[in-house]
């Protein structure tokens, strides 16, 4: 083989490898994005059904209840404008408390109950998860606009 065609072959195979890999990355990326919605958006029906997403806000005071089996927990996430009921099976993270901010990931059922698969309690000096704060701010803004 001539050096020139050798080079082409080498570049060609490296290029093919690269294109295949990039295609894989982009497909995986599209399929696995998880969107965030505020409780208000969920209440307005803007959130998807049958696809996992995240909601965030405050854990409503007095809402945490354990069912008799001991594992299933019910609570509600609120942005102060709307309240979304949530169920979760398992232990609650140490920092998950009523009146504190939380973000949960899961699937919204047709009955309006959010079935959480993951509870995210942040572990840094900022006790308020960012997304929870965002939801509160949005609701706050919306309420103000209504008043004017």
């Amino acid at each position, binding site marked *: 083989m001539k050096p020139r065609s050798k080079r082409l072959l080498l570049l060609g195979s490296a290029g093919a490898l690269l294109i295949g890999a990039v295609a*894989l990355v982009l497909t995986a990326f599209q399929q*696995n994005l998880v969107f965030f919605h505020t409780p208000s958006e969920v209440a307005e029906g803007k959130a998807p059904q049958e696809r996992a997403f995240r909601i965030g806000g405050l854990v409503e005071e007095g809402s945490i209840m354990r069912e008799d089996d001991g594992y299933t927990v019910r609570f509600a996430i609120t942005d102060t404008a709307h309240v979304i009921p949530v169920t979760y099976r398992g232990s609650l993270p140490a920092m998950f408390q009523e009146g504190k901010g939380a973000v949960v990931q899961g699937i919204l059922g047709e009955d309006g109950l959010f079935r959480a698969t993951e509870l995210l309690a942040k572990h840094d000096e900022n006790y308020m998860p*960012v997304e929870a704060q965002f939801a509160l701010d949005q609701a706050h803004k919306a309420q103000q606009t209504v008043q004017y």
Partner: protein
Amino acid sequence: MIAELGHFALILALVLSIVQAIVPMVGAAKNRIALMSVGRSAAHGQLLFIVISYVLLTYAFITSDFSVKLAASHSHTQTPLIYKITGVWGNHEGSLLLWAMTLSVWTVAVSIFSRSLPEAFMARVMGVLGWISAGFISFTLFTSNPFERLLPAVAEGRDLNPLLQDPGMIIHPPLLYMGYVGFSVAFAFAIAALLTGRFDAAWARWSRPWTTVAWIFLTAGIAVGSGWAYYELGWGGWWFWDPVENASFMPWLLGTALMHSLAVTEKRGAFRSWTLLLAISTFSMSLLGTFLVRSGVITSVHAFAVDPARGLYILALLVLVIGISLVLFAWRAPKLAGGGSFDLVSRDSSLLANNVLLAVVTGAVLLGTLYPLFMDALNLGKISVGPPYFEAVFVPLMAPVVILMMVGPFVRWKRDGVARIVRKVGPGLLLSVVIGVGWAFAIGHVTWRTVLGLSLAAWVLLASAKLLQERFADRPGTALAVRLRGIPGGWWGMWIAHLGIGIFIIGVTMIGSLESHIDVRMSEGQRAELGGYTFVFRGAKFVEGPNYEAARGLIEVFRGDRPWTTMTPEKRFYVASAMPMTQVSLDIGPFRDLYVSLGDQLDAETWLVNLHIKPFISWIWAGCVLMGLGGIFAASDRRYRRLAERAAPADAARQAG
């Protein structure tokens, strides 16, 4: 007074770093030896003053001087001494000071161990490191002064985040920083090479041990961090693909590519531009990691927008470093073209393929880490990219890397025949798949992922055995000791590190396939079964720690009827920071860990207890240890020392002349 002295020492260090950045560069340009050697002295002085400054800050923490704002926010009189000391780097300002000190340590190490380098080259290396140092020290001084006073002083500090009060946290940041910052040496060598136009096999030989040592530290740092997350966060996971983890993983991936690319450049003179580009981008990833973790963009892009000084400074630093080095690269690299040519079927091209794949994986991790930040910054919606994405990308891209990793050593440099390679590795590859399938059936968990993982692991082990056997067959007739000594450290390094990957894959696959977990509601005397173990809850009692209160559960574990061990998970409450914490209890074993934590207290007598069995998790750590050990073997290869000895007389002759 102490804090002011520390502040002053840091200012002196900044002045010296600026001297180190400018004078030797001028000297190299004008070919004046006296100016060139200033770099070395400035570096030594700089280290002295940074250490003074660091020690004084630590003194403020130990003596609980709460007129220093940093100590007031991250320490407490009741904090155990060791956490007062490590608390110095458990925060933004202190960790930046540690960053700068680490860089200074590396710089001085280069100035001591690389005496044999040509003076002009060395001067430029010192200059580049000086610029980086000036950038970071000024960042610390102007935006994040660790010595800021709090007037009036408070009576009691706010304590270190309880999650950080842990032995893992003592060594994790220094190890990680040694790794991150260590890549600055390879970067400085690359820039110096671009400036001088000297870029040959010798350059690669100088860079190799430094890159390898940085890589060892980074590997250890990531492994310790992962272990810390495993037992401290209380969820039993060991890797979360969280942005902070990704920030350290990206330089690791590129650093791995760089080590291998340097090997090719040294041995064959090929891949020169690619190696240079990798040296630049690996360090850029270290800087990006520092930016991600230190600017606060991860916690909130908006927090970043509200207090942009820190973020903008470090972003500007990042853009400057990457921008200038890429411009320099674009300008000078075409002159460096050439080097060894090689065929499509050769060890060179198998290394190139792995390099490309590692770069793509880095790109994929970068995309998943930065994309949500961009979306958020541009107000296009809030999204998150979770572990499913990273796993979907990582597994298929790394599988060929692992296969090629063990094929490569059987392939000849420059040119080889397909038939010869197939004869060598074909049977082993087939056998690995058979073993993988059989193994998956044996453990009763047949999914494509388990089969793939176990086949890859089998392949690494089989190929390692064959490599070793071939190496020993190399010189028939000689004594074993002679043959052992004939094998260079670099070869052992490669062999051990690759074997470590195999062990690591076994751990990851087994835990992914077989881990089991139950949450049980338990009151005193109640029992639960998991994985052949019986857990009996003996109640929880109140205990008091130095700076926390805790409920300590007592759980007796039986294997069959035999008492096995007693476990004591805790639910702690740190008084000063008012933070609850879960303290896991572990029973570590070679083939499984028992992992027990206390969940919620349901009523006075009843707790929700989380029981996990983590099969083969120790193999993950063992794999990391082997990788690090391999690095140590490779870095201590006799060749590098011989190089220094050979060059020494030449140096003496030049100075005499």
